[in-house]
């Protein structure tokens, strides 16, 4: 089956000796993770300064998941991110100012102000623009996977969802369909312990990765703070998908370190839990690993950090200065020609 499939665009690296053997790839992943952190920290400040239209959703401690997954697939693959996955957008080439523009309702945001906050995507970068309904991008992703298979291409779809979203029927339907039709789809469960205020024990009575067996697809659990582990698991799932072996569920375990969004002080989260997870900052962990591997010195890491901080500051400046949309054409585009 694999041999008859047409190749989709873009390269994904599967370096011999694993991702850690590829210094250039590792540094790019690190920079993107650090950029996600810098952009989101900046957006938190902007929220506090009253600059944002509404609340701000952040992906602190999700950076290794967003970047590790996006880096392990090709640019031509269909990517369906959600609110914790800024790093996946950045990896694909979305500029930070445009993400901010979405939260500001600017004309230069990906939807020109027609949608806002975290509901953005870039069709030209094969990034789906999700709607609010958090489980809905799972069936949509299976459709993208279906389209690749239908055309005999070896592309795949990769979608993200939180632990909370897995309670939804559409999610189960899509998982089942993907398995039954053996679709080239990768399901990334971002288990961050909470769905808004709802703790894991009120969401599920079983481990997410084990539920994959119920659909007849492999389920793996990885440390969601470990970019290398996430990358390797995704690369294997991608290999299976491209070879016609069907979907994979990857449960990435991490913690939601901020509130559901910045308006939420998350007083329901035990402080000890936050303190425990604070020791496992994915960006710090990857920085330490790069130094240990000899891929970067402490000074080089610090330079990258300063560089992305400056990029986030410049992004804010541009986004704030960008024009608001004008309501002249609001009735256009309800229908396609």
């Amino acid at each position, binding site marked *: 089956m694999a041999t008859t499939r047409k190749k989709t665009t873009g390269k994904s690296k599967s370096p011999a000796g694993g991702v850690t053997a590829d210094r250039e790839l590792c540094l790019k992943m690190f920079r993107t993770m650090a950029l996600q952190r810098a952009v989101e920290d900046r957006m938190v400040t902007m929220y506090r300064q009253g600059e944002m239209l509404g609340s701000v959703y952040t992906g602190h401690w999700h950076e290794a998941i967003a970047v590790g997954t996006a880096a392990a697939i090709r640019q031509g693959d*269909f990517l369906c991110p959600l609110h914790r996955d800024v790093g996946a957008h950045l990896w694909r080439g979305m500029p930070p100012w445009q993400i901010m523009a979405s939260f500001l309702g600017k004309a230069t945001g990906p*939807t020109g102000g027609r949608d806002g906050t975290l509901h953005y995507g870039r069709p030209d970068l094969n990034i789906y623009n999700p709607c609010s309904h958090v489980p809905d991008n799972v069936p949509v992703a*299976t*459709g993208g996977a*279906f*389209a690749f298979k239908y055309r005999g291409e070896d592309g795949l779809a990769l979608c993200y969802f939180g632990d909370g979203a897995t309670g939804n029927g*559409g999610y189960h339907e899509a998982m089942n*369909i993907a398995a039954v039709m053996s679709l080239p789809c990768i399901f990334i469960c971002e288990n961050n312990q909470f769905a808004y205020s709802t703790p894991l024990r009120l969401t599920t009575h079983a481990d997410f990765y084990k539920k994959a067996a119920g659909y007849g697809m492999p389920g793996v659990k990885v440390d969601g703070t470990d970019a290398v582990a996430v990358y390797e698991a995704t690369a294997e799932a991608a290999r299976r998908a491209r070879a016609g072996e069907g979907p994979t569920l990857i449960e990435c375990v991490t913690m939601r370190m901020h509130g559901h969004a910045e308006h939420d002080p998350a007083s329901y989260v035990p402080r000890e839990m936050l303190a425990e997870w604070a020791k496992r900052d994915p960006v710090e962990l990857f920085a330490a690993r790069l130094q240990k591997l000899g891929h970067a010195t402490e000074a080089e890491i610090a330079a990258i950090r300063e560089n992305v901080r400056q990029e986030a500051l410049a992004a804010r400046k541009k986004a704030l200065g960008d024009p608001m949309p004008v309501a002249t054409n609001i009735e256009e585009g309800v*229908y*396609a020609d």
Partner: protein
Amino acid sequence: MPTNKEQVAEEVTYLDAISQALAAEMERDESVFLMGEDVGQFGGAFKISKGFMERFGARRVVDTPIAENGFTGMAAGAAICGLRPVVEFQFADFISQAFDPIINVMARHHYRTGVPVPVTLRCPFGGRLRAGPTHSQSIESYFAHVPGLKIVAPATVEDAAGLLISSIRDNNPVLFLESKYLYRRLKVPAPLSLEPTPLGVAKVAREGTDVTLVSYSVGVQQGLEAAEVLAREGISVEVIDCRTLVPLDIDTIVKSVKKTSRAVVLHEAARRLGYGAEIASEIGEACFWFLDAPVTRIAALNTPIPTSPPLEDAVLPQTEEVIETLRKVARS
């Protein structure tokens, strides 16, 4: 001499028309495929896709699990990624399970992103088959309120084909309402032309001068019957077939009402907030100074649709009621 069997085959039903049009579009465009429950080897609950599996193969005639939300969302994703899915709901009633992907994904995606979502949602709908409260519903009003969807409801064999072709070629999500009552009752001589009928263009199904009856789907056939009876009494009824509800060709309707000065709107859906309320309101605004009688609605009672014949008949509009109402309005 043709045998009896061949003579039968020389007629095309409303159902055949849908089947032929769908097959023709699948022949014409590789990106068109059919998906739904039992559509493959079984040929669909109503046999629209009989023989499709042999002709197009399992790749393009896709049997799905019973998962309306999942497979409708999947159709959205496939369309966003360049395919043109045709989704068969086994009965229109089951589309309630798929509200979310239709409303929140399909209907908004182009407006937000500029990416078209060309999906045709085929829905066998309506009553009169003694199928009861959850197999007889008219679903158009649920969706007519949602910007971004088109709604098509053919009343004739020719339109069943022509409008389906246009729906499939359209770059938007289209709800295609198939009258399962008309499926095998309506026939025309073969062969059927497989030309597209444009969306958004109503048709004067019968010309008349005294009163305008506006309807769609099975109501048009009922209206034509009533018009025939009333013609014998000297009442001339103009019957307008909307064909598409969204977009609605209000100009054709208004032109007719300005001529006749009287309007009756008929449908099988429940009266309260049925699509007729919208049509009546548009007529009222556009034709106020032309009207000789209030715009009048004929619709189902505001009840679920019962199963047993005397009960279902009491709920859905019957031809006798259509005749009486038209007579009353024409003489007022």
